[in-house]
């Protein structure tokens, strides 16, 4: 077949594979049209959920055992984490706890450790599962990231309302220096700043949270798929190769090299996107909690 037709056929197949498809048939027939259907994305999300829950429940049981041993022996050193699982999870939880304390503050930080830890570990494990061929990360679908961004947004807005009162939160959107200006300055500058901050807090922040995570994951998978399509076109595995000469093999080899390099980069991006989502949620919570100091 011609190169153009083969390439467009493979790209169409790639985009079809990456879309949200029902899980009940092995050959999926089209997009999901009714709610409550188990899709390929939700089934991988369930697997990620089971993995994260199992890790944390096992760690909780292990630390309960250490607590029992320590109360029996009376030694403080027996409270220290022992074993590989506890040591590993201790690093993870310390990472989240340091992030929460640094960003939100010493007093309110520890209250949000479970929320930030959930966002971080679920997104991280799900993104890593999405890198397995055939695996899907919930962040690769617009629905998944919208749900997570909506949760983050509702939480930081509700925290802002409860800590500062309904009117107080809206008043805190205008900086305190502007609130003390004479009437004309308050109207013009304050009105403009209020509009900007209102749009930012209520529209731009949740939207960009969702789109940033989705675009990073989806674009990464598409790039990986295109390089893999190139390899499959030029190296004869299942179909006869497009150009079975030295040039064809060279193009296949270069595509394979790029595929491996992009795979390493995608692992990095998976971690970074989980981290950025979590730390942005922490920054938004901090600006809600400390809104009275604006």
């Amino acid at each position, binding site marked *: 077949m011609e190169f153009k037709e083969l390439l467009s056929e493979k790209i169409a197949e790639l985009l079809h594979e990456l879309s949200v498809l029902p899980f009940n048939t092995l050959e999926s027939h089209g997009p999901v049209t009714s709610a409550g259907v188990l899709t390929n994305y939700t089934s991988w999300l369930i697997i990620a959920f089971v993995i994260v829950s199992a890790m944390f429940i096992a760690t909780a049981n292990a630390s309960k055992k250490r607590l029992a041993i320590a109360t029996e022996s009376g030694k403080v050193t027996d409270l220290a984490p022992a074993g590989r699982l506890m040591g590993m999870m201790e690093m993870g939880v310390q990472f989240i706890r340091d992030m929460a304390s640094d960003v939100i503050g010493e007093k309110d930080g520890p209250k949000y450790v479970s929320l930030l830890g959930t966002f971080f570990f679920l997104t991280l494990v799900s993104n890593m599962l999405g890198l397995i061929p055939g695996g899907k990360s919930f962040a690769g679908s617009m629905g998944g990231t919208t749900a997570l961004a909506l949760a983050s947004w509702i939480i930081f807005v509700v925290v802002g309302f409860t800590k500062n009162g309904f009117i107080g939160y809206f008043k805190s959107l205008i900086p305190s220096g502007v609130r003390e200006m004479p009437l004309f300055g308050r109207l013009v500058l304050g009105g403009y700043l209020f509009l900007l901050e209102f749009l930012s807090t209520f529209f731009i922040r949740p939207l*960009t949270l969702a789109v*940033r995570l989705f*675009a*990073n994951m*989806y*674009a990464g998978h*598409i790039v990986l798929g295109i390089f893999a399509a190139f390899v499959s076109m030029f190296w004869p595995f299942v179909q006869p190769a497009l150009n079975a000469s030295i040039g064809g093999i060279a193009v296949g080899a270069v595509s394979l090299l790029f595929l491996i390099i992009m795979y390493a980069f995608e692992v990095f991006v998976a971690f970074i*996107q989980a981290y950025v989502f979590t*730390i*942005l949620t922490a920054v938004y919570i901090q600006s809600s909690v400390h809104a009275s100091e604006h």
Partner: protein
Amino acid sequence: MEQAGLIAIGKGIAYGLAAIGPGLGIGIVGGKALESMARQPEMAGKLQTTMFIAIAFTEALALLGFVLTFLMG
């Protein structure tokens, strides 16, 4: 056929224009972070964290253009 050609041109222009701003932005923020880390190495951890946040903000705009390219036509 004409419409397919126009769509292809549109995709190219869309992503090409979308990549200019974030490219410059990420370069600037990365360079500033590197400079600051060289001036004061003990702040390197905090600077690196802030650099990643700033890169994520600007990169989101470029990737928005990339994804819209695939959703076109």
